[in-house]
């Protein structure tokens, strides 16, 4: 066994070996936790010392001012009661009224709704919802449409009316 206790005249400061382990551990700990020296990054002074407090402050729920509602409660109840009675008197038509149904709607209103409402359906798609027997084809076929109206319709809807090669009866 190596006799390393023979120092022959050498000595150490008092308590040197007692504190040696702590100092080495401290140094090793610091080195392993800090960035390598050749990396270039640094932090503000005392950043790590103050980090815990900063984090704690962020995690604690912030106190918000509580507004007591209890003392105002009875005023609210009284005000709400008066408002409710007023509404009952004014809004409810005491004389009774006809209940609205599909039949009471004017067809103009329905047309306006279909025209203006964004149904997302084309007129062909809408037509599919109408039962065939309700279409009353005869009513359309038997309708007496003036030639003038037909020409007006074609004029509005067709780009080049001459392409239709219509025969005009020149009377």
């Amino acid at each position, binding site marked *: 066994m190596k006799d390393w206790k023979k120092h022959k005249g050498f000595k150490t400061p008092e308590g040197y070996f007692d504190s040696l382990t702590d100092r080495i551990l401290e140094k090793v700990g610091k080195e392993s*936790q*800090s*960035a*390598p020296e*050749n*990396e*270039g*990054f*640094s*932090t*503000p002074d005392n*950043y*790590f010392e103050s*980090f*815990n407090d*900063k*984090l704690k402050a*962020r*995690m604690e729920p912030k106190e918000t001012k509580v507004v007591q509602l209890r003392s105002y409660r009875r005023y609210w109840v009284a005000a709400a009661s008066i408002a409710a009675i007023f509404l009952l008197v004014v809004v409810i038509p005491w004389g009774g009224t006809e209940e609205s149904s599909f039949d009471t709607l004017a067809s103009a209103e329905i047309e306006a709704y279909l025209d203006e409402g964004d149904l997302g359906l084309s007129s062909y798609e809408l037509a599919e919802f109408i039962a065939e027997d309700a279409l009353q084809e005869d009513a359309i076929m038997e309708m007496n449409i003036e030639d003038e109206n037909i020409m007006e319709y074609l004029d509005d809807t067709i780009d080049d009316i001459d392409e239709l090669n219509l025969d005009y009866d020149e009377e």
Partner: protein
Amino acid sequence: MIAEETLVKQLKQKDTQAKAFEMLINTYKERLYWHIRRIVLDHDDADDVLQNTFIKVYRSIDGFKGDSKLYSWMYRIATNESLTFLKQKSRKLGVNSEALQERMANNLQADVYFEGDEIQYQLQQAIATLPEKQKLVFNMKYFEELKYEEISEILETSVGGLKASYHLAVKKIESYLKEN
């Protein structure tokens, strides 16, 4: 140092949670800070992400099953938080991730908390050109000196894949430094 299992148990119990959490912060804050700092480069950004990481750890500790080591789990959270932070930053600035990396590396020259010399600055420029995965692996292996097995647990990638990523990263950095 307290055993990991005991610490996790204390973190999950209401009466011991506060003290255990403080111990957890004291043990890991510096290691996680430097891990985050190498990804986001800026000190203020690293500080934000580190706080978010600990808050997430605190809120998710009940879900920690112990399938991996506690520090691997925390490193994974820190990595994900850093990458999410960078994605948000690039969206805010309206630039893609490559442009953001270049901008971050260029900003180092004016950063009061970067005291590196020209070579260290060039090294950071070179790292900024690496794809995300290679950059993470390079930092964890080269600067943080983690073992491949540890990195594998954190990034959930095979050791073989990590070795290939590290090898490619070193090659790219070498050629960047030669060219510049």
